[in-house]
């Protein structure tokens, strides 16, 4: 295999190892949110009445709290597959948006690598990564520092998710609903979003998006997030023309 030695060489690179450790440290705060959401998803899955084998496969492979939480009741109720897929697609739309950015960092890696890296990149990974490395590499090929940093973030987040969701599945009855763990996940998303409000135009588009998401919250299948993203792009384009930032 060609990837083996190249991978070993990367891990032996001190710059890579330093960046990996840095990524592990930087994700620690956001991992609180990942742990909370993992527990919530695990408990919801354990109490859904779906078989344990299915639950474990879902927890270990789907790796997306929002679509798991939304689609589980649909599966339990026997909803048509297309409704389940459409709901998951809408709730994962933000990852489609993130993949535009990832392309600038990993666009020239091999396709299998690109897909694996993207699969590992949940919300906290994206937010922390672009905060640390706002400038993509010139050639679309991530530097060893960026690769190490990404994997430090992503693998820590991945581990936190799986530990928490397995704990949630097996300890479902010991976790009181009164803790309101789900909202810790919301607080984590908020804390991750705040550093992304880098200039006036982005703050303006984000405000518009938040207002639209609230006003359209009753729309089915999480379509309010689609409305909010569309609003942000239109409002942001207008704001960029008006203020021409950077």
């Amino acid at each position, binding site marked *: 295999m060609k990837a083996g030695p190249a991978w070993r060489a990367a891990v032996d690179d001190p710059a890579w190892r330093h960046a990996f450790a840095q990524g592990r440290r930087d994700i620690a705060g956001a991992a609180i949110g990942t742990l909370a959401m993992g527990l919530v998803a695990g408990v919801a899955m354990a109490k859904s009445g779906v078989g344990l084998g299915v639950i474990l496969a879902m927890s270990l492979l789907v790796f997306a709290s929002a679509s798991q939480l939304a689609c589980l009741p649909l599966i339990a109720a026997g909803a048509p597959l297309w409704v389940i897929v459409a709901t998951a697609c809408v709730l994962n739309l*933000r990852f489609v*948006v*993130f*993949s*535009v950015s990832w392309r600038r960092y990993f666009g020239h890696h091999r396709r299998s690598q690109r897909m694996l890296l993207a699969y590992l990149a949940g919300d906290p990974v994206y*937010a922390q990564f672009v905060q640390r490395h706002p400038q993509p590499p010139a050639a679309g090929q991530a530097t060893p520092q960026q690769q190490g940093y990404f994997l430090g973030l992503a693998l820590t987040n991945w581990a936190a998710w799986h530990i928490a969701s397995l704990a949630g599945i097996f300890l479902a009855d010991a976790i009181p609903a009164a*803790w309101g763990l789900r909202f810790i996940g919301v607080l984590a*998303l908020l804390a991750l*979003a705040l550093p*992304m409000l880098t200039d006036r135009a982005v703050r303006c588009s984000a405000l518009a998006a938040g207002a639209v998401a609230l006003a359209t919250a009753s729309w089915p299948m999480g379509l309010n997030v689609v409305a909010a993203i569309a609003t942000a792009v239109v409002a942001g384009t207008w704001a960029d023309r008006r203020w021409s930032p950077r």
Partner: protein
Amino acid sequence: MHLGHALYVWLAVGALVGVTVLTRSFFLLPDGEPKLPGWLWRGLRHAPVAALLAMVVPDVFLSNGRLLSDWHDARLFAVGAALAYYLVRRNDVAGTILVGTGTLMLLRLGFGWP
């Protein structure tokens, strides 16, 4: 479990895995640069933070689909405390989450707020 039902459930889980893989790698799938109009490429810089906040804002201000009518809500104070901390200590994501979580837990478990 009925065989047809078992098949349905496994198909659903497989479909969800497919959705995760395909949405996360959507613009990374083609080898060539995807062709989008220039204004859309530029406008998309506004999308990530909007997508995150769109998940947050309704969860803060809505309760069972209705706007909060009572300000005695642990969520509002948790968000307020987190924002205040973030404004004082810029870019401290961990601290922001901890302050928000601490406030939430104090009000919910200590004072029994919703």
